């Protein structure tokens, strides 16, 4: 009898507390209303939150970092990435994807593509509201749907962005230096400005 009464006391306490305590959905305290009224209210986004991947471009949309090396497509555990390399008018392969499809019905947000990419071209997004009316058409994202600017990346994950930019800059300098030495050893040529684009 006493146990039942004690339990009822606890539920009553929670009932009353829901009127008294302020609503703090993100707090670590016990009691009060803890739910979030989703579309209007949202919890703060965690920086490391990962959802579906996106492709990064520098500055303009033409400047895609992806060189269509196919590593992510090979490493992707559920094999949801499909890449076809672009060719120029003469049929010579170019270092950019012509087709870059990700099937979000298959993708399981594991983030291995991001980890495997040697060119920092693909990252996990925070966007999760991508519902669509039918499976095949609206959830297979093509190259142009996937492209997002570095500014977006910087906005959602500032820490990672800073670290990656740092490293990229260093790599580019190293590369430039190496190139410079190679070129100096060979024959002097008008040097091209070092760009982060391969």
């Amino acid at each position, binding site marked *: 009898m006493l146990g039942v009464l004690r339990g009822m006391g606890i539920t009553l306490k929670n009932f009353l507390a829901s009127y008294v305590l302020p609503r703090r959905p993100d707090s670590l305290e016990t009691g009060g209303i803890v739910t979030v009224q989703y579309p209007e209210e949202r919890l703060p986004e965690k*920086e490391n939150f990962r959802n579906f991947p996106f492709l990064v471009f520098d500055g303009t949309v033409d400047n895609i970092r992806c060189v269509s090396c196919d590593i992510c497509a090979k490493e992707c555990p559920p094999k949801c990435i499909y890449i076809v390399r672009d060719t120029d008018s003469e049929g010579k392969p170019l270092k950019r994807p012509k087709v870059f499809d990700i099937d979000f019905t298959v993708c*399981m*947000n594991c983030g291995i593509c991001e980890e495997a990419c040697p060119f920092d071209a693909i990252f996990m997004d925070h966007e999760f509201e991508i519902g669509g009316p039918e499976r095949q058409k609206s959830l297979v994202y093509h190259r142009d749907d996937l492209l997002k600017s570095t500014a977006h990346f910087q906005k959602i994950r500032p820490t990672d962005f800073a670290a990656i930019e740092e490293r990229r800059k260093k790599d580019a300098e190293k590369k430039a230096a190496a190139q410079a030495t190679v070129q100096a050893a060979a024959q002097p040529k008008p040097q091209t400005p070092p760009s982060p684009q391969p």
Partner: protein
Amino acid sequence: MSPPVLEKTFQASDPVLQDTETFEVNLGPQHPSTHGVFRMNVKLEGETIVSLKPVMGYLHRNHEQIAENMSYLGSMPYTDRLDYFNSMSNNFGYALAVERLAKIDVPERAQYVRVIMAELTRLVNHVSVIGFLLNDLGAFFTPVLYAFREREKILDVFEEVAGSRMMCNYLRFGGVKRDLTPAVTERIKKIVRGFPKFLDEFEGLLTRNEILCIRCQKVGVLPYDLAVNAGITGPMARASGVNYDLRKVDRYSIYDRFKFKIPLGKIGDVYDRYLVRILEMRESLKILEQALKEIPAGPVMNPKFAALAKAPRNFKPPKGEAYGRVEAPKGELGFYLVSDGTAQPWRYHVRAPSLINLTVLEDLCLGHKVADAVIILGSIDIVLGELDH
């Protein structure tokens, strides 16, 4: 066939009147309390169970074959989906097996991070299992939602460190994916400090509740011998008094550094299983406190294998085999790996505690009522993702 004449049926020996007909019911695959798509083929006499056959495989996706066609790292996110409540401990078990296979060392800090995550997972699992058990008992969602309130706090931590709330995919061979930031450590500390208060509230709501007591006590008693013989592990075995906790037995990772005890039940009924879980949570909190106090600075990834993440296909463990097992919240989670020296495991086998703990379901349920079968199943604590792998 001519229908029987009524006069004949009025003899006392006639089956029409005598027969206490057994009555076959399929609990599941669509049933509110089979915890997923699981079926119990139950034969009843009145409401008493005379036979019970579990039928499973509705969620079978040949996890093992998927893993055999995948790079070693590629299976890591799939282990999340085994027992989707405890992705961290699944990752832990798999990482342990691969590390044993390829003989990889794990840096100190990463060990601590792993232990912290595994114990947080244990809290998440036990607290929600008790909630679900209470739901099976007929409490209208209140314990579940209280449990989820606390679980949410821990899942927020997981999201912050691993990027995902449930499918963490956080451990890597030779370390973990990302370091804990001081803010996260602080948050975990706060959670650990606040958790006993919640446990007290939870216990106040449940432990001494007479209805819960009479429903759970002396129901589904699992004797010691059967528990050992049937390979029951985890809290379920410990509720029957089997003193076998891999954290103490194998002392894998760095569990030998922490002071904690193993609660053991004496009878092995549903109530013991419930309370052992509560007590285990309190012990886990002790481990967490110690780990958070002692956690050293340093790298979280073995530098030799840090590059591995960049090219999982190049990771080729030497030929051989390894059996790695951890004390997952549900019991002994084992991974048996056979490597043929290529980038894909030749054989990948999961010893799923949910599956093996289910062996005794019929023994526990016989002679009890339908309502008891439901709570016995709830107290065994199965997750269909792992059961059906």
